[in-house]
Each structure stands twice: as structure tokens, then as C-alpha cells.
């Protein structure tokens, strides 16, 4: 009798069990969906409250921060992306008037991501710290730097946009490594053809945040870098740089000279900064990964050539400054090899490093008696603009 009952009940039991498992699975799925939904909503609300990003916006670094038009590659006016916020003229500093404040010295900072600020906490990028140090006097620091600007692009930015703001001092921190890219930097041209209309494809804000937080283990990152490098390198003879390419050095020097002339023509004083990295000489074992990662941007060079080029570029910067009676602050000699002042890539500053370079520039500005506001020059500039 029991056997018969078991025979009848067994399939029934398994069906009941199956239904229970199904119910549990649906429940878990619903809980997971709830988790993701709440996280996405919270991320959007927080972005709205903290950064002013619209709830349904699709943030994009290049589109939200960079404007590439007929004038130059420059900051997008009122651009916002994550911690980065630009003012009404597309500069990374507080709102400002176009004309410099009366009797105050306007200092304009030009450069790429190192000057724009990448890894520093908000308000700790070097131009902001420079403004903090100079606060006791009447100085206004304008951060006109934008990520990825070569010296060529800086010239264009200065001629087309920066000079409009009549700074008294222009501080330039050029990035030499751009000159070791596959092709030497040229004048940036506005994108050809129609710009894609509408926002980029919709993405989960949560995924974006996860990308910021999740740090892949070193071995995975190493593999990724190796794969990227292998994909970019060519086996053609003469493609790789066997030594520091003279033609690229010359190009860097020429561009720098052109920039100096352009700035000097406006009557502003130009201060060139030599480029520094946190890599030791020779690089330590712990720095090898960062050095290899850097090579992704200049695959034709080896690590040695890259570092040699940095040294040559620093000499060139000083050479140009002395020939063109520009001022120079030797950041490289002070900061090179001090990994503790740099972010993990040994190229961009951390908060402390940004403080060091800001201090060096401030020392120069405060010690140079010629750094003053020039009302006459400004008047002339205003008339020219009209």
C-alpha cells in the first residue's frame, strides 16, 4: 500500500518542489532587479544633487567637456562631467568676467590633462592650488587647459580663444610625449562631416560608477596593455624609434617657439614649465607597469627612448626660454623621480604633487617684479577686440 502511495506521490512531490524552486528563483530575480533599480535611481539622484547632472542625461567626457569648433579645441562653456565643471567660458575655474579685474594680475594656465587636473581631488588641481596660494594678492588664475592638448593645439587655443581674455601671465606646461605618437602632432581640425545628432546611446549610470571603482588585478591590466601594445606595434623596418627622433624634438621646439612668439606678441609674459614624471632614473621595478602602460600612447618608442625624450624635451624647453627671453620654471628637476607626488600613472599629479608645482609657479610669480597688471596693454587689447 505504502509503495503504491509513494509511486503516486513521488511525481507530485517533484512537481511541488519544482514549483517551489521556480518561485524562489523568481523571488531572487525580483530582489536583484529591485537592487539594480534602486542603485540606478540613487546614482542619478546623487549626480543631480551633487554635480547638477540632469536625471535623464547621458554623461560623456568628450561631449560634455570639450568643444571642437572652427576656433580651437577648448573647454565647453558651462560643461560638466563627474567632478569636472567648467565656467561660462569653458575654463576650469570659478565664474569670471571676460575682462581681467582692474589692477589684478590675470594668470592663464595652458596645457593638457596634467594642468586641467585628472586624479586630484576637486579643487586640488594645480591651477586651483596656485589660486589658493596667490589669494593674498590680487591675482586671478584661469585654467584654460584641456585634456589631450598638444603644443600645436595650445597655439590654436591661444590664438583663437585664450588671448581674448588678456592675461598678464601665461603659464604653459607642455606634454612632450605627444610628439612620440605615430605621427607628429598637427593643427587640430574640426571634425569633418556632420556631428552625430542627439545624445549618445543610453547607458546605466551604475555601470559607469562601477568602472570607476573596480580596479582590475595587476595581471589582468598587464595582459590588456600587452595586447593593446602588440596590436599597435608594426614590424616594418624603421618604424620603431631606435633613438630619440631628432625631427620630433625639432618639431616640439619649433612649436614651443611659435607659442612663445604668439603669447609675447599680445604683451603677456610667458612662463614655460619643464615636464616632469614620477619615474626614477633608472625606473624602479614598481614603476615598470606604469611605464609600459604609457607606451600605449607612443608605441613606436621604447621605455628608454620615452624617458630620454622627456629629458631632451626639458632641455629644449629651457633652450627656447633662454633664446626667446621667456621665463622658465624647471619643474622636472624638482619633481622628477618623486613618485609620491604623482598618481598611479606617474604622469599626472596627485593632490600633494599639484601643491608642489603650484608652489613653484607661485614662487616665480611672486618673485618676479615684472609680473604686474598692465592697464595700458589691456586698453589696447580692448580697442583691438572692438
Amino acid at each position, binding site marked *: 500500500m505504502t509503495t503504491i502511495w509513494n509511486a503516486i506521490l513521488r511525481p507530485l512531490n517533484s512537481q511541488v518542489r519544482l514549483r517551489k524552486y521556480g518561485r524562489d528563483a523568481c*523571488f531572487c530575480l*525580483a530582489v536583484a532587479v529591485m537592487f539594480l*533599480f534602486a542603485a540606478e535611481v540613487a546614482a542619478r539622484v546623487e549626480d543631480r544633487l*551633487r554635480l547638477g547632472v540632469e536625471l535623464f542625461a547621458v554623461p560623456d567626457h568628450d561631449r560634455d567637456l570639450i568643444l571642437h569648433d572652427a576656433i580651437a579645441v577648448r573647454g565647453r562653456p558651462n560643461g560638466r562631467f563627474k567632478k569636472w565643471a567648467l565656467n561660462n567660458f569653458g575654463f576650469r575655474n570659478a565664474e569670471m568676467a571676460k575682462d581681467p579685474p582692474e589692477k589684478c594680475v590675470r594668470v592663464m594656465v595652458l596645457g593638457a590633462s596634467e594642468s586641467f587636473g585628472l586624479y586630484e581631488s576637486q579643487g586640488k588641481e594645480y591651477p586651483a592650488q596656485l589660486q589658493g596660494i596667490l589669494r593674498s594678492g590680487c591675482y586671478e588664475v584661469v585654467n584654460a587647459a584641456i585634456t589631450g592638448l598638444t603644443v600645436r593645439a595650445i597655439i590654436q587655443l591661444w590664438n583663437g580663444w585664450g588671448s581674448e581674455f588678456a592675461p598678464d601671465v601665461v603659464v604653459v606646461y607642455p606634454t612632450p610625449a605627444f610628439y612620440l605618437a605615430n605621427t607628429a602632432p598637427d593643427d587640430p581640425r574640426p571634425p569633418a562631416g556632420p556631428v552625430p545628432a542627439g545624445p549618445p546611446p543610453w547607458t546605466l549610470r551604475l555601470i559607469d*560608477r562601477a568602472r570607476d571603482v573596480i580596479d582590475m588585478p595587476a595581471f589582468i591590466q598587464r595582459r590588456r596593455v600587452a595586447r593593446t601594445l602588440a596590436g599597435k606595434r608594426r614590424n616594418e623596418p624603421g618604424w620603431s624609434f631606435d633613438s630619440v627622433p631628432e625631427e620630433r624634438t625639432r618639431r616640439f621646439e619649433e612649436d614651443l617657439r611659435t607659442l612663445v612668439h604668439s603669447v609675447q606678441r599680445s604683451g603677456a609674459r610667458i612662463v614655460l614649465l619643464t615636464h616632469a614624471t614620477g619615474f626614477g632614473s633608472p625606473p624602479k621595478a614598481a614603476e615598470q607597469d606604469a611605464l609600459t602602460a604609457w607606451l600605449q600612447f607612443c608605441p613606436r618608442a621604447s621605455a628608454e627612448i620615452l624617458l630620454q625624450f622627456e629629458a631632451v624635451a626639458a632641455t629644449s624647453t629651457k633652450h627656447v626660454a633662454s633664446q626667446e627671453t621667456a621665463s622658465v620654471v624647471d619643474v622636472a628637476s624638482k619633481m622628477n623621480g618623486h613618485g609620491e607626488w604623482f598618481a598611479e600613472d606617474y604622469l599626472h599629479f596627485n593632490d600633494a604633487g599639484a601643491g608642489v608645482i603650484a608652489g613653484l609657479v607661485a614662487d616665480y610669480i611672486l618673485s618676479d617684479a615684472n609680473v604686474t597688471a598692465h592697464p595700458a596693454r589691456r586698453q589696447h587689447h580692448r580697442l583691438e577686440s572692438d
Partner: protein
Amino acid sequence: MLFNSFVFLCAFLPVTYAVFWLLRDVSARYIWLTITGYIFYGYWNPRFTLLMAFSTLVSYLAGLGFLEWSDARRRRLCLVVPVVTDLCLLGVFKYTNFLLESTSQAAHLLGLNINLPRLSIILPIGISFYTFHTITYIVDSYRGTIKPTRNFFEFSAYVSLFSQLVAGPIVRFRQIESDLGNLGETDRMRWLWRGVSFFIVGLVEKVVVADTLAALVDPAMAHYSTLSSLAMWLTMAGYTFQLYFDFAGYSDMAVGLGYMFGLRIPQNFNAPYKALDPSDFWRRWHISLSSCLRDYLYIPLGGSRRGEWITTRNLLVTMLLGGLWHGASWTFIAWGLYHGTLLVLYRRFESLWSRLPALARQSAMFVLVLIGWVFFRSTDFHMAWSILSRLFSPGPGAELPATGLWTLALAFAAWWSMAGPNAFDLHAAEQPKRRYAFALAAAFGVCVALMAGTGSSPFLYFQF
């Protein structure tokens, strides 16, 4: 390692939990808890694990001494040596520079030119907590309140239990002795829900409430000397709530983690801003510390049994040392003395105070506690005086930005801490309803999103 960090949530906790329940033997579980405790602690600075190991070993040996010897002299030795060792560790790492600075300052006041150099000593995180764990174990063993354990790993698991290692609660051995003893037979599912729920409620308190308030309070506090009176009151109210949610959040997470591993960690906060008088406040705020101070300091000093003056002295001494426990600074001593004075005054005027309506008593108590936090938050008396003068002499000054967010954050924090349910109220039912899982999932989602956005901020009580 922080509870509100991804390395803890995504790596440390899952691995620790999975391996713990895969192990069947109670000793293996003790060993695993010890190992994970040291990893958790060493993640900050591995060198200081040696300090904890030393303190553990000394206290364990003293416990064995209590088991072996019954004569008073040896037992007293077993009491004095480890307690003095622990207090010396605490003294050297926490109070040396304070002593040197205070001596120099006192010498200057006396007209002597003595400048004692400040030593480069790093304060090990949580040293005040784990030394208290070991001290309570020793004293309880000496008093015969507990029977010391012979199992070294049971004791080391108790001291280095990661859930309460760096910021408490100060769990006494007797409070989890039975759970530790039954660790081999504990049913994994019995308290899992409860543990997860406690942990998430604590995470909400920390990440959503305390960190939001911190984002408003910290920038305001950076310019405290320029704030208007109203802005100062709002800032101090914000700090009052921030501190509570920060620490209560940590404690609730610790309770939750304890449940997940079959250990019932006692309640550390019982809605302290619902307190109606100073005595009530200290029965609700940092319960594990205040009960330790009561049992190991106030009562041995004579408690309230030897007349009014001795009681007053005992209260002041206990609260002064309680303040000093929090930090090596005169402002912490002032904070302790302030609360001691409140307790003394309350004893004198209890009958008058009790005649006030409950709402008035609760509000007045909140304001009194807020004033105390001025000393707690200030780095020196100059800052404390500046804040107090701004609070009590209405005047113009900078107002707070983002007033709407301030109002919202303060209103929510005030409701939750002064009228709403605390974590233990929320877990009154033995088994929560199934739909509660959706609320927990949503709350956890919010926390994860905020953690990914603003990063993990350390707990305020880590500094103690």
C-alpha cells in the same frame, strides 16, 4: 578595511563567510576567525597586528594563570601584569605625545623654557577597543564572573573578531561566551536574515545619512569662524546627527556581521537622542563603553553608596577618564567633565527636571548633548570657544549653501534619531516578512550606488 568598502563587501566578507560555514570543526572556525581578524586589521598596517597578538597572548596566559592558581598573590599578579601591559600599550601609543605637549605647556605657564619634542608615533586603529576587550576579560576572570578559556584560538577569535575589532562595540567575553562555545553547532540559516538586515540598516545609517551629513558639515566646519549663528547651530546639529549615525551605523553593521557568523553582539545604541535626562543618555549612547566604565571604574570607586561628595567625585572621575579614552586631548577631557557635571547636576535637581514635559526634557537634553559635541569636534579650546560664542551670541556671518538639502538631511536625521525606530526596533520580529527583502535590496542598492560615487569614507570612531 572598512565595512563600507567594495573590497570588504565583494571579497573579504564573501570569502570569510563561505569558508567559515564550510568548516565543520569549532576549533577550525576559531582559527579561521582569528586569521580573518588579523587580515582585516593588517589591511591597514600589518605591523600593528604584532601588537594585537602580543596583547592577546599576555591576556590568554593570564587567563591560564587564573585557572591554575588559586592563591590570592598569584591571582593578583595575573590581574596586574596584563592590565598594566595593556594600559602601557595604550599609554605609549595614544597618550605619549599628549603628555609631552602638556608638560611643555605647563612648563611654559610656569615660566620654564622646556620644549619636549613630539615623537613620531602612529596611533594603531582600534587600540582603545581591543585593549578594553582584553582588560574586561582579565578583570572578569579575576572576579570569577567568567571561567577563562583554555582554548587559545577561542580567545584570539574573541579579541580579533573583525566585526567589533576596530570600533567596537566593546563586547565582553561573558556576553558572547556561550555563542563562541556553540560555534561548532550553530545553524547557519538561523540568524542569516537578521544579520543581513542589521548590516544593511547599519550601512544605510552610515552611507546614506552620516556621509550625506558629513558632505554638508565638513565644508561648513572648515570655515566655522565665519559662520552666522544660525549656520553654526545648523552645522552643529548636522554634526550631532552625523556622529550618531556614523557610530550607530558601524555598531549595527557589527551586530549584523555577528549574527551572520552565529554570534549575538549586544546593542550599542538605543536611540540616545530620545533620552530625557543625562543619566538616560548614557544608558543609550555607546552602551558597551558606558557599562564598562560603570562596572570597572565607577562601581569599584564606590559608586553612589558613599555619600553625595564621593558620588560626585566618582561621576566626575569616571566621565573624565571616559573623555580621555576617546582621545588624547584636553578638549576630550573637557567633554568628559562636561558630561560628568551634567550627571552631577541631574542627581541634584532630578525632581525638578522630572516635572518638565517629556518633549521639553528630550529637546533640552538634545541641546545639552549638542553643546558637548562642540568640545568633541574641536581640535583645541580656541576652536571650541569660537563655536560656542557663535552659537550663543547671535550675529551675522556666512550662511550655509544648499539650504534645501540641509533642511531635508537634518529633518530626516532628526526624525529617525529622535522619533523613528532604531535598528533593534526594526528587528523586533524573529523572522521578517518576505517582502522586507525588497526594501533591503533597495536600501543596499542605494548604498552601493553612493559608495561607488563618493567613495568609502572612514568611520569617525576609528580615530579612538
